[in-house]
């Protein structure tokens, strides 16, 4: 089964992987306007989310701002 490691946790996609990063975020119910992403250590600019393909066993980091000093 296809998996992605998202924020450190393996996640399985029994119905197949979403095709793009934008679709992955939608499936996870995450508002893409507030997120920055890294795939296999490479930063993906938000404007490229819709064109960025995801593939089996990639490491995905989804990050956003939090309160901090």
């Amino acid at each position, binding site marked *: 089964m296809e998996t992605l490691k998202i924020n450190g946790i393996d996640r399985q996609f029994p119905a197949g992987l979403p095709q793009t990063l934008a679709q992955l975020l939608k499936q996870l119910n995450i*508002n893409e306007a507030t997120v920055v992403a890294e795939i296999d250590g490479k930063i993906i600019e938000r404007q490229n989310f819709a064109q960025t393909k995801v593939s089996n066993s990639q490491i995905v980091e989804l990050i956003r701002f939090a309160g901090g*000093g």
Partner: protein
Amino acid sequence: MDELIIAGRSFNSRLLVGTGKFASCELMAEAIACSGTEIVTVALRRVDIENENDDILSAIDRSKYLLLPNTSGARDAEEAVRLAKLARAATGINWVKLEVTPDPYYLLPDPVETLKAAEILVKDDFVVLPYINADPILAKKLEDAGTATVMPLASPIGSNQGLKARAALEIIIEQANVPVVIDAGLGLPSHAADAMEMGADAVLINTAIATANDPPAMAEAFKLAVEAGRTAYKSGPPSAGRKASASSPLTGFLRE
């Protein structure tokens, strides 16, 4: 009050405010407004996928406040550079509060890794504001590396102990050619006023405002203290002496 200039950009407020530890986004927004600040710090963290929560940026009006992302959580230069680049990708902002704090108990910054990260980030066109221990030699090295400020601590982050590092901070202020922002450990408006009277260019406050019973009121108190301290510093305070010096005339007494 005179303007604060960092990397060619002018600010009317000399108080920077952190956004951590507030009980709610609403309270944070109100406190930020009451503080008069124009620079607010934020952190970067993984999205909690199971509990989709609010985005803190929706509570910060970016037309009024410059967002200053920090690299908190970084344990070495490599992690700090990665966080700075993610923050820039997220916001388009090339300003970064550089923090490298491998020690979990006192959260003291690592001087070697901080300098290393600063050199990398300056070369990559970041405006770097490094959080450092109160070390005058390190402050000079960072300035020479091209950082926009130095941000020495007054005492450990969130400790509210005030200006424990006073003697070293005075040397940093005396020698710096970039703005000195005293960051971390200032727990009361009087600490902030004291720092500004010493000649600090600005202070950064988070815990003391966010964890007060009434954060907006405390934010206003810090605003007034920073303004008072800066105005006093610019007015040229007289020096302290050991003996009394009468304020009233020593002549014309009603006695023989």
